[in-house]
């Protein structure tokens, strides 16, 4: 019996202790008319040999295309120790550290994680993680409503340069709580959010302003001005950031112009995937959240603290649990129960191995490779850069025709050429969001350039012949 250790003798002895004749008697309290028949829709069991074959065959169907898609999930080198350690049974098969004394490994690791994320983002405190970047933004919006006591509007401004999938998720989650998300347009030339679109809200009751850095187009926003605007209007500033980029970019804790004292963002969140978590079709990743100490009690999710044991020695435990659902039930800060412990384990090992110098190298290599890709692709007739603003490691290209068909053609050649932006930005009809990370080398970039030239050239030749 798969994964069931009972011998016939065990079963007989156990039934005797219970005082029943058969296992089915244990289910006698279920009304007989409800009992299920055989589950004909579930196939028969496979042995490990058979399932291994099936999964290898399925994997082979998908193959290993050369990937230039980013858009919120990034292909990075993951050092061998990261998952070798994260998948150790002691981490992999443990649960939420309710029994602190038997979970010091997980607890200390989360404390180290909290320390690293606080340091990277330049904020005072971090939680133990949330589900993913998108749901972290939704939670940040709800947290802002609780934290900004001077605001009654429950109105949050979200530029269209924020990941459109994040905006959709935030809407699904906060919509039932009377929170309004107002979108702000972007500047068609620079690709930055349109500063003028904020003016109509100046002096009004705004709960928070969301700023994504780098934004969804890969462009860097003028975070100082936006932070100062938010604070001048008694709004909280929610920063959505790529943690890897923070090795090079100004940490959100220091956003804001020097004239207003670099007040910094109030809540920082984002997707932790770039820190050692594989693409894996979109999850499991982890969302992170950091904030100022003054808002720690409004923060959702688990938090680990360092304390002392009965002998006065340091140890770690879950703390501030009075915010959470298992204590406060309907009045909790969120219904969230778990964090993303396993991926946080991977990220903590990743950050430790890379250190500040390594993270900086990875970020710089990504910038170099994407600049190199941009140069190679814009050398092709019919390909232009869309936006002028400064970039991190992603860039929007304008093609001379709709992107969808071009991408399909590239996919046939084993290249995932980027993300067609027209679905989320109908006004960007032939725009393509592309990304190159440190995993791409000269040959990869040359291969993409050649394929794109062929696809575009072949298509225009066809058009000319017709």
């Amino acid at each position, binding site marked *: 019996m798969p994964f069931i250790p009972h011998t016939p003798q065990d079963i007989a002895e156990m039934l005797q202790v219970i005082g029943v004749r058969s*296992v089915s008697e244990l289910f006698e309290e279920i009304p007989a008319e409800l009992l*299920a028949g055989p589950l004909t829709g579930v196939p028969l069991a496979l042995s490990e040999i058979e399932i291994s074959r099936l999964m290898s065959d399925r994997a082979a169907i998908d193959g290993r295309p050369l990937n230039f898609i980013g858009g919120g999930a990034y292909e990075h080198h993951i050092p061998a120790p990261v998952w070798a350690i994260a998948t150790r049974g002691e981490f992999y*098969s443990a649960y939420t550290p309710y029994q602190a*004394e038997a979970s*010091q490994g997980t607890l200390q690791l989360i404390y180290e994680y909290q320390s690293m994320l606080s340091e990277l983002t330049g904020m005072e405190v971090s939680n133990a993680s949330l589900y993913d970047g998108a749901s972290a933004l939704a939670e940040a919006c709800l947290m802002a409503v609780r934290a900004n006591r001077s605001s009654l509007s429950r109105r949050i401004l979200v530029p269209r340069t924020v990941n459109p*999938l994040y905006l959709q998720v935030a809407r699904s989650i906060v919509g039932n709580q009377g929170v309004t998300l107002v979108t702000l347009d972007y500047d068609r030339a620079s690709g930055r959010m349109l500063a003028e679109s904020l003016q109509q809200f100046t002096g009004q009751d705004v709960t928070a302003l969301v700023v994504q850095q780098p934004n969804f187009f890969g462009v860097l926003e003028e975070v100082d001005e936006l932070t100062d605007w938010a604070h001048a209007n008694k709004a909280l500033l929610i920063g959505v950031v790529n943690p890897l980029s923070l090795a090079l970019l100004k940490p959100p804790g220091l956003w804001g112009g020097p004239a207003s004292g670099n007040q910094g963002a109030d809540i920082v969140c984002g997707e932790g995937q770039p820190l050692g978590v*594989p693409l894996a079709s979109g*999850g499991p990743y982890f969302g992170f959240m950091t904030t100022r100490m003054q808002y720690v009690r409004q923060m959702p999710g688990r938090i680990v603290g*360092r304390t002392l044991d009965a002998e006065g020695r340091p140890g770690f435990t879950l703390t501030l649990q009075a915010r959470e659902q298992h204590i406060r039930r309907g009045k909790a800060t969120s219904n969230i129960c778990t964090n993303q412990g396993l991926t946080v384990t991977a990220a903590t090992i990743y950050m430790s191995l890379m250190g500040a110098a390594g993270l900086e190298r990875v970020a710089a290599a990504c910038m170099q490779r994407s600049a190199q890709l941009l140069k190679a692709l814009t050398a092709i007739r019919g390909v232009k850069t869309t936006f002028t603003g400064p970039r991190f490691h992603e860039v929007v290209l304008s093609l001379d025709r709709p992107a969808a068909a071009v991408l399909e053609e590239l996919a046939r050649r084993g290249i995932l050429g980027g993300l067609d932006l027209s679905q989320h930005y109908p006004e960007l009809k032939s725009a393509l969001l592309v990304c190159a990370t440190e995993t791409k080398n000269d040959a990869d970039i040359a291969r993409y350039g050649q394929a794109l030239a062929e696809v575009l050239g072949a298509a225009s030749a066809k058009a000319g012949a017709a």
Partner: protein
Amino acid sequence: MNATTSSVTRKAAREPVIFEISKPGREAPTQFPPLARGPDAGAPALPAHLRRQARPAMPSVSELQAVRHFTRLSQLNFSIDTHFYPLGSCTMKYNPKACNSLAMLPEFLNRHPLAPASASQGFLACMFELQEMLREITGMHGVSLTPMAGAQGEFAGVAMIRAYHRARGDEGRNEIIVPEAAHGTNPATAAMCGCVVREIPCDSNGDVDIEALRAAAGPKTAGIMLTNPSTLGVFERKIVTVEKIVHAAGGLLYYDGANLNAILGKVRPGDMGFDVIHMNLHKTFSTPHGGGGPGSGAVGVGERLLPYLPIPVVGRDGERYRWLDERDRPKSIGRLSAFMGNAGVNMRAYIYMRMLGRDGMVRVAEFAALNANYMMRRLTAEGFDAAYGMRRASHEFIITLKRQHRQYNISAMDVAKRLLDYGMHAPTTYFPLLVPECLLIEPTETEAKEDLDRFCDAMSEILREMAETPEMVSKAPHTMPVRRLDDVRAAKLLDLVWKPAAARAGE
């Protein structure tokens, strides 16, 4: 059984915080990417006002130091792979290794979530078949895999119930009925969906108080959230009556899949009349708990809620699989994760289900029930009180230490801590809240009789200690890396991030 109090026998010494073993200039350079050189190499410089000025104070260690540090940390944990872990309501069963290794095949690991369906047929086939199997075992009409944890599955379920009532123009239905024994996420979820919670009591046998339900159900009822078997570890025998009352009042029935392991293949929530269910794939389908996540909270719905399922869902056109999104499902409650939820977790659940197969499903429930009922009988024979000993246990059961607490002033928490000394993870304590001094014990089907016996023997030994050497219990644990931790201090003097010793001294 010998669990000594001497501190020298502690399993492991304290491991320094990684910042304490850091040394400026130490690196793991093999992991660094090469930087291109030459005239074409440079990326455009970042504008000065957007640049970071000072390096973050991250760890600075060698590869070996990092490996050793995190390996040592892992050794401070109890886990399923190393210890019996009968944590009630969490279904801590064996996580088969093949589920992990096959989900981590490089093609799956490297698949970008936004890769086109044409380059993803292998992955999509697995997800489609997972949806179909979950539909079959729950008796539902449609399944979405996108919720990332049980609590998000709950959110999806209640949001769908609200969307359904709204679409019918029935705006006034904003009450969710919840039995008082419910998990804390239930009322928290209802609140997140803008609903008001109405709690109803259970009767002394652990079934829902039908008269209270009749009084609560009415034109304001959006729905009821139930687990069955309930958090009291017993099957809700009046489920058919509950279904009739709630549906007659115009409400819908939500099944919290926390305890699905108990009834897998035996009875299907759809056949019990439930309209929506979330499943905890990390419990019933044995994906790793990972130190507190990731989970996966797939939702299933009956016909009425089908249009509202969260997107994306995998659909099939002939032999091709594709994503169904807002264009196919305009009434959907929307997206809950940036992509499609915890795909890698879903993959592990898929592999597990294929290895169990049709007949393996029902065996899960049968042997989970056999193990739980056996332990309940053995523990009551050893002198413990089962909270619902007159009932059949489901996959779990509750021991109440109310009597021992009165007699020896030993709490459920003390016993939980003492069990750690015996090399077993503690059961869930103080949940459900309405049973005083309780231990909620869920052995799961993957534990052998010898391990169940070892636990029962330890409990019996602890009972003896309560009378003879009570300090062994009240001051436990004695053999863990740390003694009992000061939670009050942790919450009062918040120490949530590492600061160098100098900064600490100045505080």
